[in-house]
């Protein structure tokens, strides 16, 4: 590595070229988000029992991932940025899961 002076990191196989995301992509993401907002509202009015919160949160997670990948450009970033984002969410999940140990370790649904 050190034999080349490569400040832009272009010789690195993990280098991500800067990409400009087109308005068409943004438009499709926008439509997806609006459609899934409609779906989650519709699902709230249907009695799915215990699965109402599951469906609502699954749709919210899907929408958040779409926003992160496209609106926030993470899909097009270098591995450094991808790893940073993933590390943040992973740490957050660890914090929540460990704090809820009392609930995870007992009979589910009998809280």
């Amino acid at each position, binding site marked *: 590595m050190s034999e080349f002076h490569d*400040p*832009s*990191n272009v010789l690195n196989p993990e280098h991500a070229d*800067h990409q*400009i*995301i*087109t*308005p068409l992509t*943004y*438009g499709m*993401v*926008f439509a997806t*988000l*609006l459609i899934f*907002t409609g779906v*989650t*509202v519709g*699902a*709230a*009015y*249907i*009695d*799915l*029992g*215990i*699965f*109402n*919160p599951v469906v*609502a*949160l699954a*749709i*919210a997670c899907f*929408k*958040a991932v779409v*926003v*992160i990948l*496209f*609106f*926030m*450009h993470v899909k097009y*970033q*270098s591995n*450094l*940025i991808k790893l*940073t*984002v993933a*590390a*943040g*969410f992973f*740490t*957050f999940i660890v*914090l*929540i899961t460990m*704090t*809820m140990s009392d*609930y995870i370790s007992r009979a589910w*649904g009998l*809280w």
Partner: protein
Amino acid sequence: MDNAIVATRPHTHETAVAAEHEHVVLPQHRHHFETKEQQREAATFGMWLFLLTEIMFFGGLFFAYLLYRNWYHDAFVVSSNQLSIPLGAANTAILITSGFFMALAVWAAEVQKKRLLVIFLVLTTVFGVAFLGIKAVEYHEKWEKHHIPGSHFDVSEFINPPINPKTGKPTETPLAPDMAQKTQVFFFLYFAMTGMHAFHMILGIGLLFWLTWRANRGEFSAGYVAPIENFGLYWHFVDIVWLFLFPLLYLINRHPGY
């Protein structure tokens, strides 16, 4: 003496470097970065580190919600049903639209279209303000119904819910007085979470005014887009917080599973 010569002809060196590498050295390009790409990635990295602290911050609020919802499930169900799904859904759509225009603003800055950039930033601001307007209507309704936690909070309609004239049954499950008091926990978390979200939006709208003014001067339409791009990250992050607030506060308690 060398310094004096440089000071009287400050651009000599920069011009020579620019000619040698055949690309423009922007005034925003800091000397401690070797290339514009390096500067850009450093800025994106730093912005994401800030957003990670924001994830932890909002995470604390979401965690409090998760725990108290388990503890006072019945109180959370009836107080959640006091919120208006149409208003919440409209606000979700408005916020997504605002985020869409923010994404387009980043594109306009990348392709160096100054006029479009200003238009998209203004549209982002307009939809952001519309969101806060609807939020204010909702807050006002809470004030009128005495749903703001504190000495004026009224639990009577949770203990004795209004009777539906058609069915002759209560519109909500009546709560025991001690559980009815816990509806205050829901509304406290409702105001804490949506309030902190709205505070982030107010800060963002302030920044948008500033960025729009700078964009109008052409600062971001000559190849330097980092402030627009990184503000976009912040704005989309605030969107994501709402994408979770909406189902948790408004939706998931309509049909309590158990």
